[in-house]
């Protein structure tokens, strides 16, 4: 694999809470343009991995190399800046802001207006504000909730909130979009729509890292899948192979299949 094909490399990332090892030297490589799945039973360390990657947690050892640059630990805004955007398992929107304002916050990183621009409302600032609003509208349209643009985020339906979170993440112009259980709590129709959306995002050039419980969704969407169990990567391959791996079956069924 040549270097420019690799987008993200995790090198033996370890994280523990007190005495509990949440991640045990996890290494993996994500290629540009793929949809990479990260699955595993509850408490396997998937979200912990996400939090280390996006700088919310500081990992004890190991490091990430993203797009050829070593990631600084413990700096979430820097992760976003170099192109890693994420959503949260338990949806974290700005509830008392409208949908479009949520996405506009996502544009913060790629815009510049400061205090003096805001106070003077000069031509450059006005143009930038217009561009922010325009881009936010496009993104709402892109995820399919443009008609809810002026509703408060917390008044949106569950499925729409997930979409809004994705739109907000996309507003930061990520190279890698990390989705934490985006299909949790969705019905069949919503999950299918989500599948199409994620495929579309990937087609438009954004690499996707997907944590998911819905094994069917992962197997249908992802090019490659890694399985975490008790904080260790036990398997990494194309879905068809992963599905048949005895260690994976054992992890999921708790060793009851002898």
């Amino acid at each position, binding site marked *: 694999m040549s270097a420019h094909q690799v987008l993200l490399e995790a090198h033996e990332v370890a994280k523990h809470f007190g005495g509990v090892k949440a991640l045990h030297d996890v290494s993996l490589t994500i290629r540009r343009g793929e949809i990479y799945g990260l699955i595993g039973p509850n408490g396997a360390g998937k*979200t912990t991995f*996400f*939090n280390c990657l996006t700088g*919310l*947690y500081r990992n004890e050892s190991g490091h990430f190399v993203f797009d050829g640059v070593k990631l600084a630990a413990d700096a979430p805004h820097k992760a976003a800046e170099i192109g890693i955007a994420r959503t*949260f398992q338990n949806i974290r929107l700005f509830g008392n802001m409208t949908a479009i304002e949520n996405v506009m916050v996502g544009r913060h990183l790629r815009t510049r207006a400061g205090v003096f621009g805001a106070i003077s409302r000069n031509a450059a600032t006005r143009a930038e504000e217009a561009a922010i609003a325009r881009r936010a509208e496009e993104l709402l349209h892109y995820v399919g909730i443009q008609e809810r643009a002026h509703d408060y985020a917390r008044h949106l339906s569950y499925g729409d909130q997930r979409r809004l979170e994705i739109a907000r993440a996309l507003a930061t112009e990520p190279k890698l979009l990390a989705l934490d259980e985006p299909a949790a709590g969705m019905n069949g129709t919503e999950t299918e729509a989500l599948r199409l959306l994620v495929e579309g995002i990937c087609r438009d050039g954004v690499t996707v890292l997907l944590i998911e419980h819905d094994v069917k969704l992962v197997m249908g969407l992802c090019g490659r899948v890694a399985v975490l169990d008790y904080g260790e990567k036990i398997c990494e391959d194309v879905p068809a192979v992963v599905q048949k791996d005895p260690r994976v079956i054992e992890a999921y069924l708790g060793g009851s299949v002898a």
Partner: protein
Amino acid sequence: MDTLLQQLINGLTLGAVYALVALGYTMVYGIIGLINFAHGEVVMIGTMVAFTVIVFLAGSGMPPLVILGIGLLVAVAACMVLGWALERIAYRPLRHAPRLTPLITAIGMSIVLQNVAMIIWGRNYITFPPMIHKEIYELGGASFTNVQVAIVCLAALVMLGLTYLVQRTRIGMAMRATAENQQVALLMGVDINRVIAMAFVIGSALGALAGCMVGSYYEIAHYQMGFMLGLKAFTAAVLGGIGNMAGAMAGGLLLGVIEALGAGYIGDLTGDFLGSHYQDIFAFIVLIIVLMFRPSGLFGERTGDRA
């Protein structure tokens, strides 16, 4: 050398008082996350009530220790009622209000109590009737009084008792559970209202005790005395890690000692540029420095953002 020991002894006395008051702040903060600004005023009212009772009984011919004891008990009882009433009337209706709302209420109550005290007891300093025969002991060049010994011993006893209460009794466990997670405690059948009321009542009782201690140590009382004392005690609570009871005790003692040492040595340290008027800034400077390096206080748990 004698200054060092002397300042340590004085600091320990003051620190014991800070620790008791700090406990009142930290218990309330640990459970409902409120900086109870009126707590310093509760302490002041405790001192005032004790003084009034003691002055009233001074001529009765009872032995001084009995009069002191009655004064203390009445003050503690009065403050327990006051603490309970504060919570019930002022704070409980605001349990779900925006974060700053109860804080403003607390500030309002502090102003109200201070001025009520002024109307009742007047604007002048009240002096403590000479009840206790002061014994002065000498130790390695430093001197201390029986009052100081009593303050430190009593504070230590009360803190031991409180630790037992919180660690071993049902109400103590309910308090800890509520501090940990209110929702879960509620589901486990803990009567949240009772627990919160208890925190105020116990905190106020400790405050009243502390008030009596400062009163008998300095032998004066004033309607504004609660303010700075409360501020220092709150600083001590934050220093130790707010919400953490052991932290409040340690923070209080530490602050008392630092202040006393600071006041004793600031002249030497700055070549007499700054004098002992600056005693009050030590508390805050130490606080700022500690928080820079230990954002959750000396004994607080490191709490990170949860994703």
